[in-house]
Structures are given as C-alpha cells and as structure tokens.
C-alpha cells in the first residue's frame, strides 16, 4: 500500500500545514461574527468556508502524511534492512509505451510490496525521459533508443546500463495499402515506396523513442522526408495511431501499443513487419550518483535488480499473452 494519499489516517505527526490553515479559517470566521447584516451572505460564506475548509483539512493532512519522515516498512516480510528504504521514493522516467501497455501497472505493485519503495512513474517520451536523466531529475530510466542512451552512458550520466527486453516496431497503414507495403520485406524499401507514391505518413515528431527510430529508418533509406504527405502529430503513440486511422495514413508504431489499441483502429492493418532493423530494444539504467548526489541510487539499483530477476523476466515474457494471444515484450536480461 502506498502511504501518501490515504495515509493520513495512520500518520502520527501533527498536521502543521493544516493548523496554519485553520487559523486562516478562524480569522475569517471571526470576520463573519464581527460583521452585521446580510444573514444570507453570512450563510453563503459560512457554507463556502465549511465546504472548502473540510476539503482542505483532508487535503492538508494527507499532504503532511506524504511529507512526513519515512516510517519503517510495516510488513514483516520486508527482505533486508537496506530495503526498508532510507529514501523510499524512486522516480522512474520512462517511455509512454511501458505505461500504456499496462506492464508497469502490473510490475510496480509487486516491487513495492516486496521492498517498501514507492515508485513514481513519470511516463514521457524517451527524449524527455533521457533529459530527466541528464539533469539528475530522475533516479532510474527505462527507455528504448539505444543510440541516444549511449550518449548518456558515455557522458557518465547513467550507470548500470542493462538490457531488459525487446519487442518490435511495425508499419501500419490503411487496409487498401496505396504504397503496396504488404509486398515489401525491408523497412527502407517500404519507406521509399511511401515517398514514391506520396502516401500520407504520420510521424510522431515528438523526440520519442519511436520517433528516433523512424528518423533513423528514413536515414537508412536515404530519404529526407518532407512535403505535404509527411505530417508530424507531435503527440503520443495512441494519439498518432488515431490520427493515422482517421486520415488513412501510414505510421510506425511499437507492436504492444498497436495491439492494445487495435479495436479502435479498424481502418489500419499491420503491413510491414519483422525486418530485423525494426527491433525495439528497452534498456534500464540508473542515474549516476557520482554526478548527481540527490539521486536515490539504492532505489534505482533495487528496481533494476528486480527487473532482471528470473521470475520477473518470465512475468514480462508472459505479459499480454492472455489478452492478445501473444506476448507484448520479450525478456532479454542475462
């Protein structure tokens, strides 16, 4: 269980902020008592005050609970003393696909239960996630853009760079397939066909891992995409797929997100897949505590150790099979 939100029931610390706040309320009540006339208005203000104050008291106390000094993990099962964490919060900056696929929602509760850590997942594009790592604003990163990740590894921003899992990218597009992608096996040839036929292509355009992958594929094909047929959505994978479906365009997507959304995307189909260059590789890495002293390296290490554990790797490999008949991710950790 997380403390934070409902945790105020358990906290033994006086709600300092709340008290301060109450004193405001008292002052205002004093105003009310001091004023004469306008009983309706008094009623109005009292009502408003009571309403907002009651909200605020609950709000305040809950926030105090969240800022209160960490209490030792309550479960007797907490494995090692090192893991009844001194710094209980881990900021995990990750790509939207790991959250949108539901994988993190399945993994995090297990991890939290075991270790007493609280994982704060910030799901953003890979570019933003890596930037958070570069600035020491996250403790651990989970992303899928090996070339960009290497830059951080080389700069020493991150350490413990660990191969985690992969899935793959696929080209989806309108079922009538004006560029004829179904008959093409290679990504670069497929992109050339899209350009030749001036078929609409929707790019993420958001510096995400998928966008980086797409750009590197265009580069491999020796094409600099531009023109009315090449449009950037500037939004996440789900939105971009919706746009492609609405506009009958092609786009590049990770398989997991597409499978998740398939039901809403009846006008799209997978047209080109399984080219080895389309592998989508996820790494996990800890932000370097030697560069950023505020990072929670212990927490980051615990999260990485958890992900590469055999049973969790198996869990990743089975995730999604029940719902989609095929796994969404393939575990790769040694």
């Amino acid at each position, binding site marked *: 269980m997380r403390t934070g939100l409902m945790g105020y029931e358990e906290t033994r610390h006086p709600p300092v902020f709340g008290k301060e706040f109450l004193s405001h309320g008292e002052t205002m009540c004093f105003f009310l008592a001091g004023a004469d006339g306008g009983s309706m208005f008094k009623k*109005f203000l009292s009502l408003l005050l009571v309403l907002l104050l009651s909200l605020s008291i609950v709000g305040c106390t809950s926030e105090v609970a969240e800022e209160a000094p960490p209490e030792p993990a309550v479960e007797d099962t907490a494995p090692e003393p090192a893991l009844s964490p001194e710094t209980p919060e881990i900021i995990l900056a990750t790509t939207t696909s790991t959250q949108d696929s539901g994988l993190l929602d399945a993994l995090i509760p297990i991890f939290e239960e075991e270790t007493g850590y609280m994982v704060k997942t910030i799901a953003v594009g890979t570019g933003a996630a890596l930037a958070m790592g570069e600035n*020491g604003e996250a403790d651990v990163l989970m992303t899928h853009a090996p070339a960009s990740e290497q830059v951080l590894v080389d700069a020493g921003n991150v350490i413990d760079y660990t191969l985690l899992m992969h899935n793959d990218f696929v080209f989806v597009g309108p079922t009538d397939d004006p560029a004829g992608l179904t008959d093409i096996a290679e990504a670069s040839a497929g992109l050339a066909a899209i350009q030749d036929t001036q078929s609409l292509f929707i790019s993420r355009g958001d510096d995400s891992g998928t966008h980086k992958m797409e750009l590197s594929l265009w580069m491999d094909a020796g094409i600099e995409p531009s023109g009315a047929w090449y449009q950037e959505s500037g939004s996440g994978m789900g939105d971009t797929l919706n746009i492609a479906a609405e506009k009958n365009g092609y786009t590049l997507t990770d398989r997991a997100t597409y499978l998740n959304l398939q039901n809403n995307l009846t006008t799209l189909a997978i047209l080109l897949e399984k080219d080895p260059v389309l592998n989508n590789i996820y790494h996990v890495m800890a932000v370097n505590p030697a560069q950023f002293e505020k990072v929670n390296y212990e927490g980051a290490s615990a999260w990485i150790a958890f992900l590469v554990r055999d049973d969790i790797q198996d869990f990743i490999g089975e995730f999604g099979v029940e719902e989609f008949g095929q796994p969404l991710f393939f575990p790769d950790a040694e």
Partner: protein
Amino acid sequence: MDILINGIKEALRMIIQGDPEIFQVTLLTLRISGLATLLSVVFGIPMGMFLAIKPFFGRRFLISIFNTGMGMPPTVAGLWVSVFLWRYGPFGFLNIMYSPTAMLIAQFIIASPLVIAFTVAGIQNIKPGVHEQIKALGATRMQTFWLLVKEAKLALAAAVIAGFGAVISEVGASMMVGGNIKGYSRVLTTATVMEVSKGNLEVAIALGTILLLLAYGVTLLLTIVQQREAHS
C-alpha cells in the same frame, strides 16, 4: 457515437458501484482543486481589494499583469513551477516535485490571477465614494475590508466560481508537476488524458463525465447561493 453512450454508461456504473480507484481519484481531484481555490481566495481577495482601492505607482501595471494571468495556459504555469521545484532547481530541497503538493502550488498560481482580477473589477464596480464613506464613519481596517466584501459579494462569488472552474479542469500543470502517478497524484483530468493515450476512449469519456458532474455540482452550489443573495 457508441463510444459516447457507452462512456456515459460506464461513468454511471463507476459511480453506482463505487469503483474504489475512481472514488480515490475523484476525492484527490476535489481536495487539490478545493484547497487551491481556497488558498487563492484567501490570498486573492485581499490582494485584489488592495489593488482596487489603494493608489500607488505601478498599480495599473500590476492589474494588467493579473488580467493577463487570467488567460495563462496551465502548461506554462506547470513549466514554471517545475523549474523551481526540480531537484536541482531553487526549491529542490523541499522535495515536493511530482506530488499533490506541487499540483496544489501550480493550481494556486493558476487560480489566483482570476480571483484577483475578478475582485479588482468587483470592488471598483462599487459606487465611487462608498469606500471614503466607510472610512469617514470611523471603520477599522477589518471592518472596511468586510463591508467592501459585502458590497461586492456577487462579483466575489463569481471570482470563486471562476477560480475553481479553472483549476478543476486544468490538465497541463497537473500532468507536469504531479506526474499522473497511480494512487498518488492521478486526478480526473490527467487520468482522462492517459486513458485517451491508451486508447480506452470509453473509460476516458466516463472520467470526463464524472469530472463534469463534479464541477457542475460544486458550481451549482456556489451559483445557487450567489443568486439567492442577488435577490435577497
């Protein structure tokens, strides 16, 4: 169209069955936005009143700033708050980035210009001379404050409604400084955006419906009191 109908059905199901996660998200939404509104009222009404009646150098400039602030995109507020609250930002030592407290701060910043600007307009709309009369009758500062509040009550109620409406519906700032963390900083608006991105459009519509009902409920309450007051 089916999506809309199914979404509304889903909303009703969530409400009737009391889905615990939705309940918790709704409660958090109400807590953060309610408290942000209250804080902005406590700060904004005296501030607005001061700006409205006290002539000093730069006053018009300040009012114009707050008037502009009424249209400030929440994302911009969120970005500013982020820069201050990041670990390596000036207030990083507080360690409140990605928390409900950070969302509260951002929403306070969003609501305050609205409350201030509405208050300025409301107070300045009082017949000229009332303020001087009150002072001439020997009212203390507190009494003056209270009498002016009474005079401008309808406008001030509108200020509260506008402030609350702005913060309960904003998503950009909450997403940026709260992080939409499950069970911790997820509110109705950020949950809606996430469900859209996941492709769960029906759930998104359901969340949006609950948000609208909530906003409507609170606003209705405030409006009833305001209008009763107008006719009394």
